[in-house]
């Protein structure tokens, strides 16, 4: 399967030519490097005179620091110094996690170390700087803090009550943000509906669990006035701005280097107080400083996600046509809105995306986001999608059951037709180039629901309950400036690529898109080699270095291929054009009679060509041989951004079949099917890896993952033994197929593919489970769906 041909896009030329790499499942080179241990992660970096830090973190969810004594800790072996907010604040200004484009947001100033009050268990309050991490941790035990524990506002449902603990007294309540969307008249439409169904779903907090934990090495060079930050983030240029702004350094003298990054999932695209403290310490001391979060710190300080309670209502006519949908979502984000993207986006996406595949003439959505004394919550893979898709698809299933039509029929009746794009979501967000009908048809062919129904009935007298589900969804990808930039955030929606032909004939490509393990490097290489007409192994790629790559947004929101890839394509085409101009001059022929194949400029009509190496050598070393006035430019740079619409959407249809052991409550996913329409697939194998990996993370949210808190706001399961992520044994067969509708926004036609699995799997699994439980007249409406919840629903315990 390493050379399958797919989804030919006419704008990209024939696939039956040499070096046609776009659309092929080529192996990615950097996988070998990682397997052989040749990667360079932040923790691999050792710099001369480097110091290490460990943070003292609040053991309480809400407590006042009456006094703090660090004197004994300072005398501990190997300790260089111990700082509290007093020392750090001199070198780092506070930040506020609000943006201007989504209505009023209220979040207080945040500093690297808590000043007087700690507001979540894990918030850093002091830092030990030592020769190594172990010595720093030894000294942590010697810091004396006189804590006065305060009541904690843990439960988001009571956060706005009159007797709630107001976490920030300067704000009059725990309200961070609220938004209402109102299209049409839902009340009137419900009144005229033939049937109205309702449900209420509950999503636990979970987190990203990257294989490589967060890490940073900050290196302030006093003589140059320059700070270099080695950081395993996703958005180097965003960090460049943040560091410059808050450390008060000239932005041009901030260099962010993100080499190999071991997974991110949106966890590593935010500003973390401990990382800002490390940058401040380096500036204060003029020495390199390293911080690598350990797993315990990851669980209590990496952003969490989800944490929603949502109710929904759907009205349909006699035939099952949807007349109205109404949702009301509550979410708790911890004590601060994260900086700079804010913690409003997940709820905003829930409001934007609910009902997105369907024609819903009347739609109302209310979102409320509150503060609480838990780890801050923010955007994680498939932001808001699992909630939006689950509430929509649960309601659609309920409506189908109520009026007695099949799960596929009700969807087909309500899809925005594939021929009716451009169109809009029920909330009013523009949609284009989608294929819900074709994708669902393909899914149903793959699944063979008749067979599944038969098996389900055959199992009825056994101890195992069978069920299945199907869902459709839209995935937000390739955001435009209307996502963050419009709100005042210095987050680039544009990405750049720069390609040069070197003297050896090698091609060097640099891009502002970053790689965290998903294969960015590989697809950039494929695009460049394909468009230039060179072999894959002649292209070298540089990513993740603000001193060496074009300016741009980085990798998040499934934007790498669609935005960054288009920039590479444009740059490669320009470079090829320049190459042909020079070749035409050297070969004294018409440019249009030439092409580049296999690293050689060929004459289309036959005859001897010249290699790119020969061409480059002529330009670089023997330029006097070129005709006067020849443009010697063998470097091309291009940029791309999405204009005019907020996002390029991808769509997916997913199905799954589950078995539930009625005695133990254990759910087994027997099989999972996904049909994705992400437009042009640059590397189908990598697309399918994204979908499968996304589905696995969705299975995590649906069945396993939960940050468990006690009533006082203490996280109970902050280890990999207790926080359950799906492992190989829990992964079902995931059958992936595609429908291809190219995006009209770019030549390459690629839409994003990174998040649909995570966004859709929780919905389809929950629907399948409830399809199975329906036989017993019961359901589970809370994720993760644990064995205990199943047994309670079945009244076994």
């Amino acid at each position, binding site marked *: 399967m390493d050379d399958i041909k797919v989804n030919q896009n006419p704008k990209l030329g024939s696939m039956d030519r040499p070096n046609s790499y776009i659309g092929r499942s080529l192996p990615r080179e950097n996988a070998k490097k990682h397997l052989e241990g040749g990667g360079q992660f932040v923790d691999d970096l050792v710099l001369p005179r480097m110091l290490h830090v460990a943070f003292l973190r609040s053991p309480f969810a809400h407590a006042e620091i009456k006094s703090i004594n660090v004197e004994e800790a300072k005398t501990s072996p190997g300790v260089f110094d111990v700082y509290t907010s007093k020392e750090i604040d001199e070198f780092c200004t506070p930040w506020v996690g609000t943006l201007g484009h989504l209505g009023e947001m209220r979040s207080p100033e945040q500093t690297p170390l808590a000043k007087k009050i700690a507001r979540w268990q894990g918030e850093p309050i002091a830092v030990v700087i030592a020769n190594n991490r172990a010595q720093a941790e030894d000294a942590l035990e010697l810091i004396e803090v006189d804590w006065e524990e305060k009541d904690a506002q843990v439960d988001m449902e009571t956060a706005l009550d009159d007797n709630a603990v107001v976490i920030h007294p300067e704000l009059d309540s725990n309200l961070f943000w609220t938004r209402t969307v109102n299209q049409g008249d839902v009340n009137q439409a419900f009144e005229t509906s033939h049937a109205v169904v309702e449900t209420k779903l509950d999503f636990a907090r979970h987190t990203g669990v990257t294989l490589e934990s967060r890490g940073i090495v900050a290196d302030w060079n006093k003589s140059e006035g320059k700070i270099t930050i080695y950081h395993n983030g996703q958005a180097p240029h965003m960090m460049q701005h943040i560091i410059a702004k808050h450390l008060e350094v000239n932005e041009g003298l901030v260099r962010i280097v993100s080499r190999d990054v071991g997974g991110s999932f949106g966890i590593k695209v935010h500003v973390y107080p401990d990382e800002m403290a490390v940058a401040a310490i380096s500036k204060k001391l003029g020495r390199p400083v390293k911080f690598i979060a350990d797993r315990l710190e990851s669980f209590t300080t990496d952003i969490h996600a989800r944490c929603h309670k949502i109710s929904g209502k759907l009205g349909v006519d006699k035939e099952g046509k949807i007349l109205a949908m109404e949702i009301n979502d509550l979410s708790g984000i911890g004590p601060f809105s994260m900086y700079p993207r804010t913690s409003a986006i997940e709820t905003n996406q829930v409001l934007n995306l609910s009902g997105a595949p369907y024609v819903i003439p009347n739609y109302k959505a209310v979102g409320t986001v509150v503060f609480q004394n838990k780890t801050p919550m923010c955007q994680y893979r498939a932001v808001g999608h699992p909630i939006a898709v689950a509430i929509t698809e649960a309601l659609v299933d309920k409506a189908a059951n109520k009026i007695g039509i099949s799960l596929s029929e009700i969807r087909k009746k309500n899809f925005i037709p594939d021929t009716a794009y451009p169109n809009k979501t029920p909330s009013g967000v523009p949609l284009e180039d989608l294929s819900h009908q074709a994708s669902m048809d393909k899914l149903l062919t793959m699944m063979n629901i008749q067979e599944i129904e038969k098996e389900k009935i055959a199992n009825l007298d056994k101890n195992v309950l069978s069920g299945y589900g199907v869902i459709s969804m839209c995935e937000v990808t390739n955001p435009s400036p209307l996502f963050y930039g419009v709100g005042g955030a210095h987050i680039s929606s544009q990405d750049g690529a720069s390609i040069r032909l070197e003297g050896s004939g090698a091609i060097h490509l640099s891009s502002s898109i970053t790689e965290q393990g998903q294969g960015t490097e590989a697809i950039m290489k494929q695009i460049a080699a394909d468009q230039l007409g060179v072999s894959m192994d002649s292209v070298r790629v540089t990513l993740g270095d603000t001193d060496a790559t074009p300016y741009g947004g980085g990798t998040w929101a499934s934007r790498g291929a669609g935005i960054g890839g288009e920039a590479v394509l444009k740059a490669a085409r320009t470079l090829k054009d320049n190459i042909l101009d020079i070749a035409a001059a050297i070969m004294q022929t018409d440019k249009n009679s030439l092409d580049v194949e296999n690293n050689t400029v060929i004459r289309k009509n036959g005859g001897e060509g010249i290699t790119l190496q020969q061409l480059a050598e002529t330009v670089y070393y023997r330029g006097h041989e070129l005709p006067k006035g020849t443009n010697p430019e063998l470097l091309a740079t291009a940029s791309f951004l999405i204009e005019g619409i907020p996002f390029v959407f991808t769509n997916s249809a997913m199905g799954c079949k589950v078995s539930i052991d009625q005695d133990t409550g254990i759910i087994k996913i027997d099989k999972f099917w996904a049909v994705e329409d992400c437009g042009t697939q640059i590397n189908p194998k990598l697309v399918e890896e994204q979908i499968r990996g996304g589905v696995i993370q969705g299975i995590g949210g649906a069945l396993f993952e939960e940050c468990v808190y006690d009533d006082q706001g203490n996280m109970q399961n902050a280890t990999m033994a207790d926080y*359950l992520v799906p492992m190989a044994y829990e992964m079902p067969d995931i059958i992936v197929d595609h429908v291809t509708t190219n995006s009209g926004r770019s030549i390459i036609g690629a839409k994003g593919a990174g998040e649909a699995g995570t966004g859709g799997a929780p919905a389809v699994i929950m629907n399948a489970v409830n399809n199975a439980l329906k036989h017993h007249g019961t359901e589970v409406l809370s994720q993760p769906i644990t*064995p*205990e919840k199943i047994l309670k629903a079945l009244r076994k*315990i």
Partner: protein
Amino acid sequence: MKAPDFSYFEAQNIQDAIKYKSEDDEAVILAGGQSLLPALNMRLSSPSCLIDISKINNLNEIKIEGDFINIGALATHSDVMNNDLINEKLPCLVDILKMVAHAAIRNKGTHGGSIAYGDPAAELPAFAVAMDAEIVLSGLSGQRIVNAKDFYRGLFETDLKSDEILIAIRYPFLSHNQHLIFDEVCRRHGDYAMAGLMARVELDKSKINNLDLVYFATGDKPNIAQNTAKLVIDDRYDYEKLKKSLASEIDFAGDLNSSSEMKLHLATILINKILNKLER
């Protein structure tokens, strides 16, 4: 997550290790380290010294001694699973070990370590109790043997004295009409169970003559359900009756993945699973 300072002593023989341990109350034995090292790194434990016994010769031997199979304390779970004698004489142990964590952990974790640590959620302590195994301890005053059911006293509390080291576990052979059947219910493969059961069954033709039920992941230690076992012999499987009996003889302690109510339910269900396996 870095361990606090400790000193390290690499014991060349068991006498050295015992001597060192008897002189230092705060010292702990390091064998495979699969429970100890995470505890150290999370600073849940700060021993003065790690006495590394992993280099001691012959402490990983698996051999027949009279009516017993003797498993040396240092035999790793992988050693045991791949051992011919075990596969021939005690094949049920191989199947049980497949449920113990994951391959990488089984390559380091030792049989003696798991038995000595006495995690109430672990499979091996319950297995040893169900098998009526003998635990061989060596201390300043020489060797002594403790029956597994007397060895476990409470939560992570065993009969091991401060100068003693567990050196072997001796499992009696099962006769042709005796079977050790086990099952467990986990959220994920390789996790500690929500509840698990080791049952030693003695059959007279198809009738159960004798039955020992030993639960794990249910309470503070391997929990023996003697009365419930009698009920099973008399009435076979009656969910309500057995559940009531189990509730009266085991103090079920809930955890993050299963409440005490859930554990009681699963403990009852597990009897049915065992009986079904017996019929097969």
